[in-house]
């Protein structure tokens, strides 16, 4: 509201979900989702437990492919090349190179701090020490962790605090230079200070990547996101500028949810 918001048509798209259905076997968890993901913006997914936020997020990196019986209908196109990342002919490994996921609980590998961040690069065949060192430092700096760990890169990652571990996971996700970062409740296991530092980080990161974040904390969605999507039982009820959703939502169901009323 403070700044005039640009016209949505003029914003570059990073991805677009179109008529997306998703089934866990016979159970339909997503129903005809149409949703734009704008480039270098933060989009928050909110909605009651079980509405399909995580399911939607996992479609983006094809995590559901790991289980037989899961089925996608419709598409998610990734821009600028406009490739449908759900297409069977598209290699999920390829997709996962372009998107990185950060989970609710920090999940560092049982390796050193350095090797945690270098992991994705090694998988991609990067082995030259000098390049690894450069990329690891860059990722740790981007994740606002460098100053705290630069003298202990060979320590085990588990020795870090919860908030530091989460930033390490973000550094690990950033090292491979993904186009989209996916966060599934990234701060629900963190204290308020660590949460604030992750939120600050998300705001900085959107200069370089597009971010999709699931959060149960409505104030967090209001603080960090440019766009908010409200989902309910597998459907997208309302999508819009975060300011509009939190000040003047169009849909009464959205309003009931964000104001804490009975729907």
């Amino acid at each position, binding site marked *: 509201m403070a700044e005039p918001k640009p016209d949505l048509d003029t914003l570059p798209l990073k991805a677009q979900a179109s008529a997306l259905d998703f089934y866990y076997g016979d159970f339909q968890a997503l129903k005809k989702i149409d949703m734009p993901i704008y480039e270098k913006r933060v989009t928050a997914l909110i909605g009651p437990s079980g509405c399909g936020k995580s399911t939607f997020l996992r479609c983006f990196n094809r995590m559901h492919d790991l289980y037989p019986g899961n089925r996608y209908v419709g598409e998610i196109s990734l821009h600028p090349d406009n490739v449908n990342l759900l297409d069977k002919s598209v290699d999920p490994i390829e997709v996962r190179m372009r998107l990185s996921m950060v989970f609710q609980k920090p999940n560092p590998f049982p390796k050193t701090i350095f090797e945690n961040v270098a992991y994705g690069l090694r998988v991609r065949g990067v082995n030259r020490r000098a390049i690894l060192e450069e990329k690891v430092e860059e990722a740790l700096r981007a994740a606002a962790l460098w100053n705290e760990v630069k003298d202990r890169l060979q320590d085990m990652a588990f020795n870090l605090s919860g908030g530091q571990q989460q930033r390490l996971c973000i550094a690990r996700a950033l090292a491979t230079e993904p186009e989209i970062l996916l966060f599934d409740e990234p701060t629900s296991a963190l204290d308020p200070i660590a949460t604030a530092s992750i939120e600050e980080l998300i705001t900085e990161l959107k200069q370089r990547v597009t971010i999709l974040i699931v959060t149960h904390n*409505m104030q967090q969605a*209001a603080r960090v996101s440019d766009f908010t999507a409200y989902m309910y039982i597998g459907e997208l009820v309302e999508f819009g500028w975060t300011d509009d959703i*939190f*000040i*003047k939502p169009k849909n009464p169901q959205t309003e009931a949810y*964000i*104001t*804490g009323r009975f*729907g």
Partner: protein
Amino acid sequence: MPHSEHFSKQYDSDLEDVRSRVLQMGGVVEAQILAAIECFSSGDTERMTEVTDTELRVNAYEVDIDDLCVHIVARRQPAARDLRLIMGVSKAVTDLERMGDEAEKITRMARLIHERKGPQIPLQAEVRRSGDLAVAQLRRALDAMARLDPDEAERIISEDALIDTEFRGILRQLITFMMEDPRTISTALEIIWVAKAIERIGDHAKNIAEQVIYIVRGTDVRHTGKERRRSATDEGA
């Protein structure tokens, strides 16, 4: 707007509390303005102290309601219409407090006018009429706030022009008196202050009506002409 309840009953009752106190404060201010106009008409000094005493109550309401609003913001982080209600109510409270100040101004002028010996200006009826109009606007604005009725609020806003017209009429007549008899100038200037205070009260009533539209529809109609107000509210509907 539909009034489904919050999961938190305490939250519901806190919001209700704010709203009802604003309406109470509005009632007090309305009585204060009526008393001020009465002072002007009659020169009744008893009522002058009544207006001044009421001022303290109005100020106390303002502080109290602001405090309630700050607590709700801090504890509940209101969103959407709850947020708009808190914002709209805080602004309405400021308007009500200013109306109280205008009422005081009217009584101060009334005292000067009635204490002065010399030629009187027979404009009591005109000033009274515009005062009654302003009070009626306030009463309707409070009613629109109580019922959260944006259509009524729109009518109030468009009828503010009536008070402005009355004000210009009084001004014209006063100029005529002053030109005909310069001894009336002091009194005429004081009557201008009274008429202006009444006109300001009408403006504040209009502001409250604008807040009702904001609370219900989420559209900010301040500083918009009639045309823009229409299109803004159409969009929000």
